[in-house]
């Protein structure tokens, strides 16, 4: 096999197969750490390229044979892990790899859907959290995120709240009056309206839509997220992962969740500091948590200032 044909192979057949193989290796090698992973990938890539250069790999069949000889990416990573461990013994070929996989999770998307629907009972805040989570997800398209945000603002519980407080009443009065001369005159019917009164044909369907559609949208979006997550490569389960709930994490959640009762604002700030000190949450999660908690300052202060402005102007 001449060199030219080997190079041709590299350009045509090799790329998709090798890239797919290396992608799987890259995903599986995640627990090894950045340096070890790069080193492992570079080594395997170099080996494949050398085989192509030498002509050992000249068609798809010989390439597949080479990849088979190299073994599954998961097995390579398992062997590398064992090599890295102190006092490690070589990974026994043929034994099942000491790693497990699970399908990619959609915890973020389910949480978003719950906040947009059930969570809307936490007036305004719960729904806002849902919106933040929807926009933080990478499994929904822009259009889906817009639908989730606009159908309907505030979530189902906002509909109940609006129906109970904003909707107005219309009361009519008619009667008679007696003037100074004792003559009775009928007064025309007068009607007064307080609040917003929608005609029944509009009000009832709107209320039902506001109650039901957010739940339908959330359900559809979760199913779509599930389908997209299933199409992603499985996630490596790291055996012996450290405990997730340490003292710092418990302190963070308790201070943020209950601290506001005892020390408004300060409790939450202290909890956020604990959350940022912990390495159990990702940077993105910490930023999202900070954004949610910040509404405790922004929303009431903006509301108070707006209320004050309205009162002073009237």
């Amino acid at each position, binding site marked *: 096999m001449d060199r030219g044909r080997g190079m041709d192979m590299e350009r045509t057949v090799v790329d998709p197969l090798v890239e797919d193989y290396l992608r799987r290796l890259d995903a599986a090698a995640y627990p090894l750490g950045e340096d070890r992973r790069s080193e492992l990938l570079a080594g395997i890539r170099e080996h494949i390229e050398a085989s192509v250069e030498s002509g050992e790999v000249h068609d798809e069949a010989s390439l597949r044979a080479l990849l088979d000889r190299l073994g599954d990416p998961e097995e390579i990573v398992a062997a590398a892990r064992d090599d890295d461990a102190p006092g490690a013994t070589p990974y026994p070929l043929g034994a099942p790899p000491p790693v497990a996989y*699970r399908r990619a*999770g959609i*915890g*973020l998307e*389910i*949480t978003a859907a719950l*906040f947009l629907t059930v*969570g809307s009972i*936490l*007036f*305004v*805040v*719960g729904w806002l*959290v849902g919106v933040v*989570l929807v926009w933080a997800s990478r499994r929904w398209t822009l259009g889906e995120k817009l639908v989730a945000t606009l159908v309907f603002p505030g979530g189902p519980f906002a509909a109940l709240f609006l129906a109970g407080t904003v909707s107005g009443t219309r009361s009519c009065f008619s009667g008679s009056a007696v003037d100074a001369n004792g003559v009775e005159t009928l007064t025309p019917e007068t009607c007064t309206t307080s609040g917003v009164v929608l005609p029944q044909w509009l009000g009832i369907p709107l209320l039902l839509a506001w109650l039901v559609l957010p739940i339908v949208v959330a359900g559809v979006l979760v199913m779509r997220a599930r389908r997209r997550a299933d199409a992603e490569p499985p*996630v*490596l*389960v*790291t055996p012996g992962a450290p405990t*997730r*709930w340490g003292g710092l*994490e418990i302190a*963070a*959640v*308790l201070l*943020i*969740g*209950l*601290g*506001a*009762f005892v020390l*408004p*604002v300060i*409790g*939450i700030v202290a*909890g*956020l500091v604990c*959350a940022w000190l912990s390495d*159990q*949450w990702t940077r993105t*999660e910490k930023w*999202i*948590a900070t954004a*949610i*908690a*910040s*509404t*405790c*300052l922004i*929303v*009431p*202060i903006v*509301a*108070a*200032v707006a*209320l*004050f402005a309205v*009162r002073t102007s009237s």
Partner: protein
Amino acid sequence: MGSLFNIAPILVFSWLSGVATAIYLTVRLQTRR
């Protein structure tokens, strides 16, 4: 001035935000792979 900062809504929102944040952090940690 007393009407500018009515403390009750601030407390309620503070608590709601805290609860929402705590739920979020808990769910993220619990659903971690």
